[in-house]
């Protein structure tokens, strides 16, 4: 029993299986009720065949397997065993290798990023070269993990300013160790400006965990990609005139330079290899651990 490969999520066409015994004769499936198991090779987890197994030519041992979505839901390597039950007496095949091949991953950008993607697109204006998903990838290349204290603003202490603007929607606001606030109940958000407003001055030491994005760095990358798409364009002149299609590429590179200058500065800490670390792990996670232990939580 050899099985054809399947594609993840593709259930329209199942497969036809010929059940042959070791001596080469077909398994007579007349009057048999068939079931099957699918075993994931990596995890060892077995599940039943969810699709329908039908003996189409019982005397020749030919059956069809109409896939159910559960059969081909996840790509991976599996082993399949089919069991035929003849009024309670069982015959089973050997385990057969079966591959479910993956499909291309979804190119739908995260909904929480749509406003940031729209803002980068406004800086580019060329709508044909890059997709929303491309913009998402460029933004993700220039993300900064935000884990900081919200600063309450005087005089009413109801507006809290995050250390970064252009936050991905859904940043978590909490106080203490892990007490989460509920958006639109405990506070309202302005992710673009990094402002969080509480109804009253009830909170001290609110913290934020989220991700901020460097729009101009992403825009610079986008312009460079647009320029790269025109790498082979050149200028020439002939009897009719001179042609400068490379102007568009030069403009894209100019814009990339302009946006790169507006991008956030990237700092790098260089430590000498021949000097000892700071005493007490002051600035790393061990220091945090020590301070927490000292503080009693």
């Amino acid at each position, binding site marked *: 029993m050899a099985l054809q490969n399947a594609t993840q999520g593709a259930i329209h066409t199942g497969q036809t299986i010929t059940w042959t015994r070791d001596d080469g004769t077909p398994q007579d499936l007349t009057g048999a009720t068939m079931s099957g198991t699918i075993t994931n090779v990596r995890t060892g987890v077995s599940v039943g065949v969810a699709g329908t197994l039908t003996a189409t030519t019982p005397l020749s041992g030919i059956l069809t397997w109409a896939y159910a979505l559960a059969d081909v839901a996840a790509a991976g390597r599996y082993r399949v065993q089919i069991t035929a039950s003849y009024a309670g007496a069982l015959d089973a095949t050997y385990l057969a290798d079966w591959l479910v091949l993956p499909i291309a991953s979804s190119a739908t950008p995260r909904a929480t990023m749509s406003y940031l993607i729209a803002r980068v697109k406004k800086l580019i204006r060329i709508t044909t070269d890059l997709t929303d998903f491309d913009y998402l990838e460029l933004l993700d290349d220039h993300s900064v993990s935000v884990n900081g204290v919200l600063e309450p603003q005087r005089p009413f202490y109801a507006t809290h300013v995050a250390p970064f603007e252009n936050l991905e929607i859904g940043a978590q606001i909490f106080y203490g160790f892990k007490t989460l606030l509920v958006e639109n109940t405990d506070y309202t958000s302005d992710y673009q400006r990094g402002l969080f407003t509480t109804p009253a001055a009830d909170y001290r030491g609110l913290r934020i965990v989220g991700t901020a994005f460097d729009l101009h760095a992403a825009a610079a990358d986008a312009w460079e990609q647009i320029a790269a798409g025109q790498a*082979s*364009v*050149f200028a*020439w002149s*002939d*009897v*009719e*005139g001179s*042609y400068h*299609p490379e102007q568009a590429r030069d403009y894209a590179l100019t814009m990339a330079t302009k946006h790169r200058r507006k991008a956030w500065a990237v700092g790098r800490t260089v430590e000498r290899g021949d000097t000892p670390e700071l005493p007490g792990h002051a600035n790393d996670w061990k220091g945090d651990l020590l301070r927490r232990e000292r503080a009693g939580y």
Partner: protein
Amino acid sequence: MPHLSSAQLTLMRATKLDNYSDTLDSYRAPAVSGSKRGAVTLLTAGLLCRRWPASKAPKIIALIDVGGARVDELIFFPDSVDVRRGDELRSATGEKLKIEGVGAWQTSRAVAASLVQP
């Protein structure tokens, strides 16, 4: 540019295609039969081209006669177009132009044409 790759020529043809803003139909006489030529018949309709009045033509080539005649117009076609000396070009407004000479430059084909019926 002494040597151009096919990719470069493709780019030049594609870029120049945007410049061909005029259209002309080309007519060609049939083969000689019984020592006579018949009336011209439509060869290709809607050829993309660019028409230059002779004196305004780039680099004043048209004022020098192409193919032995001083001409009224210099018309540039893409080099894929089949135009020959003796063909007739007709415009949508009924103008008829006689091709007096054909020359090729890189990706374009220059045609010297005189207006035989305005």
